[in-house]
């Protein structure tokens, strides 16, 4: 990136020679510097999805309740009676590695803007995370920084964080994943889209002043791999300002309520370039933009810098001339800047001026619509045959106490309250089932409606079989929201992958899209949005293929007393609901923690029983006090979690050793009073009874609830102290 290299400008900006040629073709001339800057950022992988776009159409995205599907800032679904919900997920992986606190903080800020851009009030955030193993001090530093950053921003901006998930593996050590998902709700009449309609309408820039923050952030941090040189990329760190964002949220929501804006767009990657061109293109319009009207934080900023800056906490509103005074008044009320920077024009041309000179003149739509699309080659990785051959579905025998305590001490299984107690998870008084359960459940005040959300990923399983792994994520996430009494309603996904220029990585990607799509089709759940993060590769090592699913569940009415993990009592019956499947230990916690193995081929989903178990779970949640899906750590861990949270032991039999640790899909534990479970159309069998002070697995052994509890509670704080 220094001038010492005699590279042509476009290559320094990460653009290939062919891409540069197409710019010349579009413009019919060489681009001016600011124009080149705009194309380079807008055509980066991060902004243009050039390697993934042709595959994403595979996702089923239609359903009668979908109001806004993929493509807008957030997906929107209909909840009836005029209520809508908006959902969106994003990654902030590379920025969080460079500076964990600010990277994660600005990730939260960005995802919230996607939500209130739609007219919705953001009401909750989730944070799926991946780090290297906690034995290493730097990984602890990263985890600590990321959690503090999410807390620091999310709490202060006044949006509760209601959960997330976390995994640890060496593969993530120099490439941690920080995904953030946000949910908003709105009344139908408040829905706003990012289209600039109406010649003569004014583009008003709201919020923070523009500095040199994150210049080239989108194209450089998120669209290229890391190597030892990454130090040079550091100046592009951005500092989040949750206070500015909070004011921006309140001001924008007030403007929507009063009908003062006709369109709005948040400024994220590619800043003003992206917001002005997208608003114009979405409305089939052009725009004249005057950079001298943009409030700047630093002197001497060039046109390219102002256009590309990723300064946080800014929005671009499209306002009819008659409403401009009112928009400025609302901004003044909330002490935020409002600057009139542009005018909507006829004809589709984006014209940008600085100091009276034309610095860019280009077809607005060309920045997004004409971006390159690549159909990159795919190849099935060779590692798979060996790994599949090595797997065994028999769990080597061991001592129950040793195995179970080792699993409960694993930071990916143990109590996660060290994380979520740093997050405000109660604000707005909606949280009925708080983090620490399969899914969090929120009521919508003033209605009988409720939403449940779960985020799920499993990099190791997807590494062993991306198609099956991805399908299972969808099924697991659906089961997680079902056990709170909601029906799976919509999905957003975040596809975190390595370098797409490697055919093996592209294969993992296409397999994942296929598996996820098939499972969503099976459940009839539309994919309403997503995000792709490629180039999660450092020094040639790619992360595990790490798709993350965010599942929204919906209930109307909400069950009166939704299941919770702490509602089991002495004498209650314990049941397993779901197929009596063969043990599934590939990528299980048992193989990883006890044997340090990652091999075998994970079981596929059961296309018949899977959806039926999910439906049964939603049904059961109306009457059963405890429902818990069986996932990481198998039945043994699921039971232990119930015992720990309910402070009550149990005795179970009729589960063989391998079955205790098997992570076969579509199963859940139900705990109910003496009179048993209601009639079900899926297999269910009783395995034991609550009571006593031990987790008693009969012939396999037992441990005291107290011992299990202290190991499980201390695992994370002990490591992070």
């Amino acid at each position, binding site marked *: 990136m220094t001038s010492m290299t005699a590279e042509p400008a476009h290559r320094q900006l990460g653009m290939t020679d062919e891409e540069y040629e197409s710019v010349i073709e579009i413009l019919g001339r060489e681009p001016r510097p600011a124009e080149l800057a705009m194309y380079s950022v807008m055509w980066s992988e991060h902004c243009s999805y050039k390697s993934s776009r042709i595959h994403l159409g595979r996702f089923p995205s239609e359903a009668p309740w979908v109001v806004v599907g993929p493509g807008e800032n957030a997906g929107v679904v209909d909840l009836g009676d005029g209520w809508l919900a908006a959902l969106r997920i994003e990654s902030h992986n590379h920025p969080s590695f460079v500076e964990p606190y600010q990277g994660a903080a600005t990730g939260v800020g960005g995802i919230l803007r996607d939500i209130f851009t739609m007219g919705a009030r953001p009401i909750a955030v989730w944070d799926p995370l991946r780090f290297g193993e906690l034995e290493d001090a730097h990984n602890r530093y990263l985890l600590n920084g990321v959690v*503090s950053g999410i*807390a*620091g921003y999310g*709490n*202060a901006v*006044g949006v509760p964080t209601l959960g997330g998930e976390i995994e640890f593996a060496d593969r993530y050590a120099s490439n941690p994943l920080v995904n953030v998902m946000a949910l908003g709700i709105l009344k139908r009449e408040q829905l706003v889209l990012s289209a600039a309609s109406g010649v003569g309408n004014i583009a008003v820039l709201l919020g923070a002043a523009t500095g040199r923050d994150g210049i080239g952030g989108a194209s450089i941090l998120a669209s290229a791999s890391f190597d030892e040189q990454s130090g040079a990329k550091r100046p592009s760190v951005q500092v989040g*300002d*949750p*206070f*500015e964002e*909070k*004011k921006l949220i*309140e001001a924008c929501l007030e403007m929507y309520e009063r009908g003062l804006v006709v369109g709005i767009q948040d400024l994220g990657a590619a800043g003003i370039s992206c917001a002005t061109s997208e608003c114009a293109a979405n409305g089939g319009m052009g725009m004249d933009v005057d950079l001298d009207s943009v409030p700047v934080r630093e002197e001497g900023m060039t046109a390219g810098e102002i256009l590309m800056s990723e300064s946080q906490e800014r929005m671009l509103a499209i306002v009819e001339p008659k409403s401009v005074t009112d928009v400025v008044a609302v901004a003044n*009320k*909330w*002490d935020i800047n409002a600057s009139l920077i542009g005018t909507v024009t006829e004809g589709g041309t984006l014209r940008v001026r600085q100091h009276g000179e034309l610095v860019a003149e280009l077809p607005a739509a060309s920045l997004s619509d004409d971006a390159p699309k690549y159909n990159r080659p795919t190849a099935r990785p060779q590692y798979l045959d060996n790994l599949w051959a090595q797997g065994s579905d028999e769990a080597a025998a061991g001592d129950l106490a040793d195995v179970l305590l080792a699993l409960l001490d694993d930071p990916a299984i143990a109590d996660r*309250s060290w994380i*979520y*107690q*740093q*997050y*405000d*998870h*109660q*604000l*707005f*008084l909606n*949280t*009925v089932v*708080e983090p620490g359960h399969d899914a969090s459940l929120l*009521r919508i*005040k003033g209605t009988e409606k409720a939403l449940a959300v779960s985020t799920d990923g499993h990099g190791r399983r997807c590494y062993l079989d991306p198609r099956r792994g991805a399908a299972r994520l969808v099924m697991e996430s659906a089961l997680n929201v079902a056990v709170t009494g909601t029906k799976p309603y919509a999905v957003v996904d975040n596809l975190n992958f390595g370098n797409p220029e490697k055919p093996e990585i592209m294969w993992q990607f296409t397999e994942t899209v296929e598996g996820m799509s098939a499972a969503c089709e099976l459940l009839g759940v539309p994919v309403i949005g997503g995000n792709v993060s490629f180039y999660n590769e450092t020094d040639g090592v790619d992360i595990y293929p790490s798709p993350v699913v965010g599942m929204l569940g919906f209930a109307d009415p909400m069950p009166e007393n939704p299941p919770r993990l702490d509602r089991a009592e002495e004498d209650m019956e314990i049941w397993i609901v779901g197929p009596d499947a063969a043990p599934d230990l590939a990528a299980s916690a048992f193989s990883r923690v006890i044997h340090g193995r990652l091999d075998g081929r994970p079981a596929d989903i059961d296309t018949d029983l899977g959806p039926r178990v999910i439906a049964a779970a939603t049904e059961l949640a109306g009457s059963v006090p405890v429902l818990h899906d069986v996932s990481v750590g198998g039945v043994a861990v699921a039971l232990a979690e119930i015992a720990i949270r309910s402070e009550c032991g149990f005795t179970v039999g009729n589960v063989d050793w391998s079955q205790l640790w098997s992570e076969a899909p579509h199963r859940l534990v139900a705990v109910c009073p003496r009179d048993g479970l209601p009639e079900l159309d899926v297999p269910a069998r009783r395995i034991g009874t609550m009571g006593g002070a031990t987790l008693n697995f009969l012939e396999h052994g037992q441990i005291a609830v107290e011992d299990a509890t202290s190991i499980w509670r201390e695992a994370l704080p002990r490591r992070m102290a």
Partner: protein
Amino acid sequence: MKIAVVIFPGTNCEHDVVHGLDLIGVDAELVFHKQTSLDGFDGVVLPGGFAHGDYLRTGAIARFSPIMDSVVAMADSGKPVVGICNGFQVLCEAGLLPGALVANRDLSFICKPVNLRVESNTSALTAGANVGDVVRIPLNSYEGNYVADDETLGHIEANGQVLFRYSDGSGTVTDDANPNGSARNIAGVSNESGNVAGLMPHPERAVEQILGSMDGLLLLGSIPAFFDLVGAK
């Protein structure tokens, strides 16, 4: 009675407080900080959040908001003035309550329910409770660590101005029960006449069984109870 609930820029618990007051039948209305008058109100609540981003010092900038002159006047007139969490911090900064709040002992944000023992029943937050009552209320703060010099601490203890202490479930005040390092486990205090009262945990988050606790109703209900008490004087 009618209560004003103040919105500073960065405040976020205002609607939750209104909801809580609504449940106990108290008429509450939001008031923006740029307003200057509290005419027609019988009391005021400064709710939780991050007024002015908590920049500079928590509560420091908010106390210069235009509305604050009226809040001070209301405090002087003996009407209930209640600060919850960030509102408590603002009242301390404004000098209406003794002491200050600094970063939690472990330097991390804490969001979890805690037990509080009621230490005095003559304030705007405790008039409806009994000394020795134990209530379970969610805490949600980074700067919840109450500090004051020894002289001040001695003085407010002697005066019955300590309203709540962090305790275990049976009401015993222990080090283990102190979540944030607060001096002498103090979670809430009042001024000498009890009409100005501040508390770190959020009573408005414990107002319905479905949210996990209803104990907050006792504290919010103390505002009208206190009002009736002084009104009767």
